[in-house]
């Protein structure tokens, strides 16, 4: 056995994945049976439609790319002990900034515009996250609250900008002008929307896994997340760890938003982030905050999205069924600490009786 100074690892990541898939499948089946008058059609659409054609599968794979980027951002913050819920606004800001740069007439369309758009998304997401990060760093403000407040404010502001001054007057969608095709991410296998994003994300997740498992900075990051005072007493730069992971996560969300704008969507559309921040938290929880498991967890959530969308189109399943299933999967996965807590109470009660002391009640 390889000797390691790290933990034995969370062996339950695999179990959690299985639980997530099984829960999703069971709930999807239940939803199809209860909510649809054509349950077999709905079931088939939900489970099989994403896989029946190469194009559907590859599009689902493409969907998982930005989601995995966001989930990786969540892992970065969670492992530093910060509970940032601002991913939605950060991703939306990234998409908005990418579309703004991609449609600027001053920048010639092409690969340079694409790179600049991606960079704009990265920076925009980081800037949105910088506000709660600064609050944490300078005033020890609660990231959970500040991140969601800033994110929500950003969502409203961008909604207004896209629907108002920056709306494409020629289009039917409430969206900005389309980014020129030559500035978009190249499609690998048309007609599917697949780009390099999912593969880039897998590579990034592997880099992140290496960072956490095999670098001193990653170890300090984890130790700070688990016990900040201990990390401070070991001489780590806890000031940096109090804000930097939040900004890095914001940048990852921003990059994901940019990838959406430069990928399948082709521009920034009002409401395009569509719950990606929450799905990312779910995917990070399913992955047990292990970067190497993030792409698989993101794929699971993409399947839920694609499956429910197909079921809505091909049967009479209500549009919100997929959302509800995702929400319940997140609850099931995040109920883990509660189950662990109940187990520990049970063990304590059991040990009290096992100790064999007479319990003459007064």
């Amino acid at each position: 056995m390889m000797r390691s100074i790290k933990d034995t690892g969370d062996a339950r990541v695999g179990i959690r994945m299985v639980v997530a898939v099984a829960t999703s499948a069971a709930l999807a089946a239940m939803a199809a049976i209860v909510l649809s008058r054509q349950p077999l059609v709905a079931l088939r659409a939900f489970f099989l439609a994403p896989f029946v054609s190469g194009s559907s599968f590859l599009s689902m794979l493409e969907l998982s790319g930005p989601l995995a980027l966001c989930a990786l951002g969540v892992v970065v913050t969670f492992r530093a002990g910060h509970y940032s819920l601002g991913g939605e606004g950060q991703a939306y800001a990234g998409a908005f900034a990418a579309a703004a740069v991609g449609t600027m007439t001053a920048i010639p369309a092409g690969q340079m515009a694409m790179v600049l758009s991606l960079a704009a998304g990265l920076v925009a997401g980081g800037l949105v996250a910088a506000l709660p990060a600064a609050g944490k760093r300078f005033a020890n403000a609660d990231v959970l609250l500040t991140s969601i407040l800033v994110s929500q404010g950003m969502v409203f502001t961008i909604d207004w900008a896209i629907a108002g001054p920056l709306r494409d007057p020629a289009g039917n969608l409430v969206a900005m002008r389309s980014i020129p095709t030559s500035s978009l991410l190249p499609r690998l296998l048309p007609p599917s929307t697949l780009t390099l994003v999912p593969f880039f994300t897998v590579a990034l997740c592997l880099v992140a896994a290496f960072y956490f498992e095999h670098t001193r900075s990653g170890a300090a990051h984890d130790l700070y997340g688990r016990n900040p005072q201990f990390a401070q007493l070991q001489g780590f730069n806890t000031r940096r760890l109090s804000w930097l992971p939040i900004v890095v996560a914001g940048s990852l969300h921003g990059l994901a938003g940019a990838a959406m704008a430069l990928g399948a969507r082709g521009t920034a559309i009002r409401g395009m982030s569509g719950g990606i921040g929450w799905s990312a938290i779910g995917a990070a929880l399913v992955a047990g905050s292990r970067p190497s498991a993030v792409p698989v967890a993101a794929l699971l959530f993409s399947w839920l999205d694609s499956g429910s969308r197909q079921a809505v189109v091909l049967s009479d399943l209500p549009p919100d069924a997929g959302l509800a299933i995702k929400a319940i999967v997140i609850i099931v996965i995040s109920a883990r600490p509660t189950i662990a807590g109940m187990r520990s109470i049970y063990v304590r009660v059991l040990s009290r009786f096992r100790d064999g002391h007479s319990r003459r009640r007064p």
Partner: protein
Amino acid sequence: MPRAVISAIRKYYASTSTLAVDDVDFVVKAGEIHALVGENGAGKSTLARILCGFEVPDAGTMSIRGTTVAFLSHRDAERAGIGFVPQYSMLAASLSAAENVALGHEPQRFGLFIDRRRVSYDFEMLAERYGFSVDPDTPVSMLSLSERRQVEIMRALARGGDVLVLDEPTSILGDTETAALFALLRRLKDAGTGIVYISHRTREILDIADRVSVMRSGRLVSTMEANELDEERLAAMIVRSMPERQPKRMMSDPGPIIFKMRGVSTRRRGIASLVDINLDVRAGEVVVIVALGGNGLDSLEDAATGLVHPDYGHIEVLGRDIRSINPLELRTRLIAYLPTDREARGLCGRSSVAMNAIAKSLSQYGFAEYADGRKPYADAAVILESFTVKHWDRRRVDTLSGGNRQRVVAGRELRGRPALVIAANPAQGLDSSARSMLFSRLQEMRDAGSAVLVLTSDPEDALDLADRTFSLYRGTLRLLERYGPDASSLAAAITGATP
């Protein structure tokens, strides 16, 4: 008839393998102040918590006013007339004094609304009956410490208050407030309330108590009338008897000053916890500061390690202001620190034993060396084996026993040659062999030229380790003996029995 009778009570904590209360009989009479005294960990707080329903005993019986009772919660105890006044204020600062007294038991109108007129009326009745002098409408945040203490006592009395248990009630009070509290307690005693008064302060105990019960290692060893005791005798009863040791010899030339505190004063919870502390610790000496709980030892630990900057005064390590030193240099090269709170400060519970062992040395590894993992693993093995920690491979540190966790902390910190070692309650939770091993290591570090500062609640640590010993009583530092004190003078000093 006694107000409360506790018979053959026993409480064992399986999680820490501690027999906290062992077959204790204890009686509280009507109209008496019964002091319950003992060292830290003697079991007095556990006994009080059992009496107040916070803990369920494993064995034994309790009766209140002659009726056998079984408390499963504090609310049961309140219904039986037992009030508890905690050491630190647990009042809602934004609510008024009257609202705090009624909190949780508010009189209601129509079962829906709080009857505020009744809240004020009940408060005034209580104040009149026992002679309290607090304005019912003033928010608690605006009250003085003494008034807050009165509100705490009124809260306890409002639920019945046949028996009142006060846990170190003067620990946050100054002399004037203490005198006011004692006047109040005497009035309550005259009104027939039975009062259990937990403290280690000998002078106060002899001033206020009618009887004194001494606990040691979970057993009640003696109950005496207070007027049969003097301060010295009471101090000797509180601090367990210690075998006489050979006086320690300080090194003839202890070396330069490594650690210096000048005029350090701090306030905690609004009152002075350290008062004008001046201290030098030199290379090659062990300085031990002994204090019982509530006398400022935790504030001193925070200040000395640079975790909390004092309100006044300054602290230097090797002649440099502690605030100006880079944290990495301070923690990894200058100070080795064994904290009292090893769970929060000494260990990262959810990380591996090996990671905890080498956490302080992470910056010493090169990128490739750390990524490879073999060198850190080998270093962890050396650290852990030096303190005989076994079966540690691929285990989380929070799965180890308490003693082994302390060994992990000691192994990590007492490595190399730091300029200063700060060890706070270092032997807490260790068995005798681990204690000897740890003390030998501290002495080796002293002999190698480190300055060693030990902050402890256990007087025996001073007898075993100290080149110089100080007592800390109510935040004031006092040098006891240059070459190590005798047991009786140490006991007297830490309980405030000597001026």
